[in-house]
């Protein structure tokens, strides 16, 4: 029973976690809008979520292949940055910075709304469960 509850909430929980990470990446982009040589980054939300749902929460990170007992397994939980991609700049700039502040702020606002959507969905699920329990 508890297992099913977990499964029910798992999708939005994972989605929230990835939205949370993406928000942080976009925040880094906006913060570094004036830093020379900074390259704007973002993640492929769909692929990361699919990886997280399949791999049970390792954020789509690929674990190291181990062929001998002495090999280190690596720590897939620490490699959240490995799933990050670099943005293709629409207009280059002389100082090597690839942040387009308008695009980043739009993405930041969009991601915040998506985050709120996931929160609302979890709230609704909890309310549904409560009304099923209380009748």
């Amino acid at each position, binding site marked *: 029973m508890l297992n099913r509850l977990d499964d029910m909430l798992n999708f939005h929980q994972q989605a929230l976690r990835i939205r*949370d*990470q993406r*928000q*942080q*990446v976009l*925040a*880094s982009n*906006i*913060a*570094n*809008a*004036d*830093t*020379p*040589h*900074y390259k704007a*980054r973002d993640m492929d939300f769909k692929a990361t979520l699919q990886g997280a749902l399949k791999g049970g929460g390792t954020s789509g990170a690929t674990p190291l292949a181990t062929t001998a007992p002495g090999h280190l397994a690596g720590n897939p939980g*620490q490699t*959240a*940055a490995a799933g*990050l991609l670099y943005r293709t700049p629409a207009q280059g700039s002389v100082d090597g910075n690839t942040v387009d*502040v308008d695009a980043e*702020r739009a993405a*930041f*606002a969009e991601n*915040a709304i998506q*985050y*709120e959507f996931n*929160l609302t969905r*979890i*709230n609704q699920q*909890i309310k549904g469960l409560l009304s099923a329990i209380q009748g």
Partner: protein
Amino acid sequence: MSLFNIFNVAGSAMNAQSQRLNTVASNLANADSATSASGEPYKARQVVFSATPVGENGATGVNVAAVIEDPSPMKMVYDPKNPLADGKGYVAMPNVNVVEEMVNMISASRSYQSNVEMMNTTKTLLLKTLSLGQ
């Protein structure tokens, strides 16, 4: 929660931008300071930003790597009555470009604003997350 880390990222950026604003203020204030404690005319100062990792999840904040003195040549102004004038009557004035400094100021304040808004959005999200399931 990575959202908490956004406060650190935005905070570091606001810190860097306010330092930039500070150098702009000092440059504009000293645009006509032909001499100083060292006897040299004032040299314009510029901040150098560098990206620095914040936390463990690949977040990147801003750090002021250095405050450099502008290497461009001093403005030579012909003013033979000035006690600081050289043999040919020229006075070395600070190499502050007022137009550049104004642009710098506007850019810094806009960037600061973006970071404040970013913090506000994050705060709203965190408060909504806190009320989850109520």
